[in-house]
């Protein structure tokens, strides 16, 4: 199933979320176990707090949508139907930097740790300007 790294700009074909809840602009497939994504934060982003900074929940939603996009892309490569993905749980969440403000670009790397049936465990790290701001383990369950 290996394919060269490629950028998928038609993110709507991989996840069901649409603006204003869509939290991934660009998805970059690296290999079966790894992907990256980017989100340029608009001023009207729903996850900005009163101070104008992205909330932790916003970054976690960004990671969840990145993970779901990756799982969906793997399904597409395998000729399968893309399912809805849900957050199963979140562990080892560490905030290591300041949350980004509007105008910043959030970049995330997601790595698949394991998969059992329709549940995928991923390790993720989000960064802004190459500085890590949050890392976690997240389970994504497919419908």
């Amino acid at each position: 199933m290996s394919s060269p790294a490629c950028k998928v700009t038609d993110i709507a074909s991989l996840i069901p979320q649409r603006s204003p809840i869509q939290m991934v602009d660009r998805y970059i497939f690296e290999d079966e176990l790894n992907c990256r994504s980017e989100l340029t934060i608009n001023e009207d982003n729903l996850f900005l707090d009163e101070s104008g900074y992205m909330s932790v929940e916003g970054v976690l939603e960004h990671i969840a949508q990145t993970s779901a996009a990756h799982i969906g892309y793997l399904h597409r490569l395998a000729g399968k139907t893309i399912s809805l993905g849900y957050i199963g749980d979140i562990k080892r969440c560490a905030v290591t930097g300041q949350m980004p403000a509007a105008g910043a670009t959030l970049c995330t790397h997601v790595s698949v740790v394991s998969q059992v049936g329709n549940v995928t465990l991923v390790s993720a790290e989000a960064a802004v300007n190459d500085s890590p701001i949050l890392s976690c383990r997240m389970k994504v369950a497919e419908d």
Partner: protein
Amino acid sequence: MIKKMVAILADEFEVEAEVIQPEANIKETMHLDSLSLVDMVGLVNEEFGVEIKTPDLPTIKTFADLYDYVFTRM
């Protein structure tokens, strides 16, 4: 090697190491559900470099089964 496995599992799933006995049922002992099973698979993969295949999971019922599966594939 078994000691290492027991310590890692006890820490991850927050159970006493003493309850992890070879003939004990894994799911019952560590209170695993369909979501947390993937944690065990990930842990074994990261710590021992062994990937437990989904179709093999039903055959791994006890900790002795898990040790056999992992240590024969390292």
